[in-house]
């Protein structure tokens, strides 16, 4: 391989998601001192000129590299965890790492009732508190009531839906959204919170459909800009749409570490649930297959592992 190609391959091996272990071994393993020196001098991104005349690793990049090397390990550990422990830890991180309150919505709304209950039990064991008290105590904004309600929910899992009630709740939502336009205070509307936090998923799907019939718009699109409510409705009614959206946003250029972690989280937690549907939705929306996109942005063992998970259920 020509020197410039190797440099390119190496830079590539250190960028994106995960590291290309094979490239690192085959290239770096045979480089002499001088070649490594050239690498250091030539890659301004990773190395900076120290005042005492040597090239030193940029600290930020070393931290980033650490994340990339650990990405595979993180995926494996997450994959092998009991789903209850996994969700409990994700909920805890959502409260502290970031914080990323939207992940609270994601976990609370896309799991089955008994799965969420299991996560709440595991949370007790792991953290000696209930998720309810930590969310209620740690969140102070207008979203508190919604988030506490979502993590405490135990929705009816049956298919029976009262269409009359669904229709009237859709009507209610339509006028509530119109009335709140611009004020962004739908979160304070206790009826809105009641509907999204207590109704069963089939019921909410029916509400979603009635809303379209009544207003000609999609409920989640009309909630654009509404803190948390848009995600809530999407997770409950159109989870695959939500997951593809987050995946795509997380695999974009110059994404921060928290966003990057979403890729592992979503693929590991959905691999055995609705990955096939997510792939279809992703392809439909972004015109490229999810496996191809992963091939593009991810490296090495991490990439291979993700591709294997994504291919399950095919």
């Amino acid at each position, binding site marked *: 391989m020509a020197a410039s190609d190797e440099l390119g391959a190496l830079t590539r091996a250190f960028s994106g998601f995960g590291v290309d272990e094979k490239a690192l071994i085959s290239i770096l393993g045979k480089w002499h001192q001088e070649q490594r020196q050239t690498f250091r001098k030539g890659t301004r991104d990773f190395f900076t000129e120290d005042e005492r005349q040597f090239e030193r690793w940029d600290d930020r990049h070393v931290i980033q590299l650490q994340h990339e090397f650990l990405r595979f390990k993180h995926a494996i550990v997450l994959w092998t965890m009991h789903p209850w422990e996994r969700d409990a830890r994700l909920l805890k991180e959502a409260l502290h790492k970031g914080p990323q309150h939207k992940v609270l919505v994601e976990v609370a709304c896309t799991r089955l009732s008994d799965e969420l*209950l299991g996560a*709440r*039990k595991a949370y*007790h064991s792991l953290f*000696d*508190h*209930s998720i*309810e*008290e930590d969310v*209620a*105590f740690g969140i102070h904004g207008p979203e508190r*009531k919604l988030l*506490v*309600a979502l993590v*405490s*929910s*135990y*929705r*009816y*899992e*049956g298919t*029976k839906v009262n269409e009359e009630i669904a229709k009237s709740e859709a009507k209610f939502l339509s006028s509530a959204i119109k009335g709140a336009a611009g004020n962004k205070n739908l979160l304070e509307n*206790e009826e809105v919170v*009641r509907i999204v*936090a*207590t*109704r*069963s998923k089939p019921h909410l799907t029916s509400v979603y459909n009635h809303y379209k019939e009544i207003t000609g718009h999609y409920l989640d699109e009309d909630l654009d800009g509404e803190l948390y409510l848009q995600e809530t409705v999407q997770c409950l009614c159109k989870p695959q749409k939500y997951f593809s959206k987050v995946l795509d946003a997380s695999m974009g250029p110059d994404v921060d570490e928290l966003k990057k972690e979403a890729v592992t989280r979503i693929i590991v937690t959905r691999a055995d649930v609705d990955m096939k549907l997510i792939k279809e939705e992703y392809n439909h929306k972004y015109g490229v297959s999810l496996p191809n996109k992963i091939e593009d942005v991810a490296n090495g063992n991490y990439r291979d592992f993700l591709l294997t998970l994504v291919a399950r259920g095919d």
Partner: protein
Amino acid sequence: MATLIFPEHPSPVADAEALRKACQGWGTDEKTIISILGRRNAIQRKLIRQAYEDMYQEDLIKRLESELSGDFEKALYQWTLDLEERDAVLLNVAIKQVPLPDYRVIVEISCIRSHEELLAIKRAYQIRYKHSVEEDLAQHTTGDIRQLLVGLVSVYRYKGDEINVRLASSEAEILHRVISEKAIFNHEETIRIITTRSKAQVLATLNHYKDDYGTSITKHLKDGSSHEFLFALRTAIRCICDHHKYYEKVVRRALNKPGTDEDSLTRVIITSAEKGLKDIKELFQKRNSMSLEHAVAKDTWGDYKAFLLTLLGKED
């Protein structure tokens, strides 16, 4: 502790036969019904119901409903249902009550039942009514009372005994501040503390309140315009702190009330007959200088009375 006396080896088939016989022909043999069902525990009653269904292709409960009436029928109906079904039915009736839901029942069940019991009740509710109890409850309540009740029903409290003393102190202070600033009675923090903290932590907080402010919090929760909310809040606090003491009070009030509140009396005795009734009886004796059996015998009549006394453990 239970107060029931039941035979060593009852046969569900024999019991089902005897119950069938008691319901046939003119009139009903209430005495037999009481002496059988009143002396069987939950598992035995379930077996009898199953045997009856197998033998006669009929739900025993439906048969009893048609044969009996009044307070006796209500009591026996509750008694014969499975434990989770009973509480699910009580919840549904309480939620749908007009003009206002029966907050007391909802608070009792949410705060006194164990985690596993409450979960089983919620599942039974979903199976029976095709809705979750949370959605029905939320639909029939509004404002602060909705926040409180839905919170109490939904919470899955941490079960440990550890308490954070600093937190208990600071949350007692929060409660005191909220209560003393009556003009801006914002219940959010009160609801948060009562509906999310573990029972041990809540107790610690309430004890701190008593230590720091001289009196138990329930005394301070009396005035104000949010009448029903405060009532439900006080009930929740009492149920969390000492539910036997709470039940004794309910029963005492039910009996002292002119005309007797049979619904409350039934509910407490039936719910506790296999768990805790002995403690309630002791408390009652201490508080009222007479036994609960005596008080019940004084204020109730007929088959209803005979049934309650059987549950209270009086031998014929």
